[in-house]
């Protein structure tokens, strides 16, 4: 991964001269890796802190879960302003995925996260690592990792429907539940994650302009 060639960032004519004159880097510098690490931690802490607010009740969870997808756009979009070459978004996804593994997420979640990060990387590449809309879409695509924790519920469906609470309700209820909470629901969940991810990208882009650019941090 370290030897991956740079995806030749186009010499944007409108960019500041100092940026254009910067030497093209062919591998991750120590600075790049520290940036990935810091923003990965910020991303994790922000998502985790906001999702945890919902632990008090399932109703609040309905608010906090989408909100955490949206809030994730703030650190992610700022991170993308510091991406100077290919592979950083993919590395970000890989380390976040491994961090999920250590914090109890199903191992499948890690694979989903890496896949989502590769999709985000592809979107950035299409925008030649310079486009704002590509960055917003990259965030939406990366947000699809939120599907990861739900995958075991799908793979091991029979076992979960066999939970004591379900059994106690009798076979008819379980059958009805099985029919209602079908694969369609998972598609709806994925779709709304994508929408929230887009909103998060927009919020991130808005706050970049409102705060971080003015503060000289972006």
């Amino acid at each position, binding site marked *: 991964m370290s030897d991956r060639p740079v995806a030749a960032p186009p010499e944007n004519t409108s960019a500041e001269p100092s940026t254009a004159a910067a030497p093209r880097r062919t591998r991750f510098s120590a600075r790049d*890796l520290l940036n990935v690490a810091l923003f990965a931690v910020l991303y994790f802490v922000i998502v985790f802190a906001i999702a945890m607010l919902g632990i008090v009740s399932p109703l609040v969870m309905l608010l906090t879960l989408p909100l955490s997808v949206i809030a994730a756009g703030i650190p992610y979009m700022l991170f993308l302003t510091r991406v100077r070459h290919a*592979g950083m978004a993919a590395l970000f996804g890989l380390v976040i995925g491994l961090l999920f593994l250590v914090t109890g997420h199903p191992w499948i979640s890690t694979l989903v996260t890496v896949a989502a990060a590769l999709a985000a990387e592809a979107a950035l590449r299409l925008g030649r690592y310079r486009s704002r809309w590509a960055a917003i879409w990259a965030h939406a695509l990366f947000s699809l990792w939120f599907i990861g924790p739900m995958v075991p519920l799908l793979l*091991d469906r029979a076992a979960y429907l066999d939970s004591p609470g379900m059994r106690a309700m009798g076979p008819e209820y379980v059958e009805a539940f099985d029919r209602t909470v079908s694969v369609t629901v998972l598609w709806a969940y994925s779709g709304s994650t994508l929408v929230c991810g887009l909103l998060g990208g927009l919020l991130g882009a808005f706050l970049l302009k409102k705060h971080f650019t003015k503060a000289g941090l972006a």
Partner: protein
Amino acid sequence: MSAPALAEVAAPATAVRSPGLDPRTKALLVIAASAAVMGPGGLRFVPAALALAVGLALWERAWARAASLTAAAAAMWAVGWLLPEWWANPVTAVASLACAYLIRFTAAAGVGMHLIATTTPTALGFALRAWNTPRPVAVTLAVMLRFFPVVAAEAAAVLDAMRLRGLAGVGGFLRHPLLSVERFTVPLIAASLRASEDLSAAAVLRGFGSPRTPTALHPPRFGPADAVLVLGTAALAAAALLLPQPLT
């Protein structure tokens, strides 16, 4: 209140005690626990994984973690398994389903917490390199471990500041969720960037993350403690397969 404040409150009097485990053993345990617990039919491994997680916490004398893991698992068992027995309704049914999932999460996270709590950033870096992990991944994961307490301290300080300014109320959060999110994340990011700046500069100047191959003063080595742990884990896994399964 501030980084030193948190350090003062949270830092143990003596530096991290090394329980003598190779970080690679801990990482393998995490992967094994997740694979066992989260895979199809994983519920049968949950008691074993919980026992492992609590055992590791006791080993490193993290009494609070041992207690909270036990309490969390007990609560989920009560809601997921006991409650529906005598009060069956759609709400408890869904809660039971959720608990069947969350108890697996807790078991896997418990094993992972041991890795995070007992591994120093440099030890993790050397262990990953011993596995020939590519430099970018090894370096990034190691430094994330270092940044975690920094960002956590900043997050706690920002929440304190929000409380003192009256911005942290539940009511305000429900009325203006996006504004609350902005007021938490923007100072958190700004303060974390600043807090990490000196740390990053000092680390890079001392060769951290460079293309050189580092050498370890204490290289990772599998020792007797690792053997004991692997045998113990094997015994737990065998017990999970052979003994009656309380959760299924």
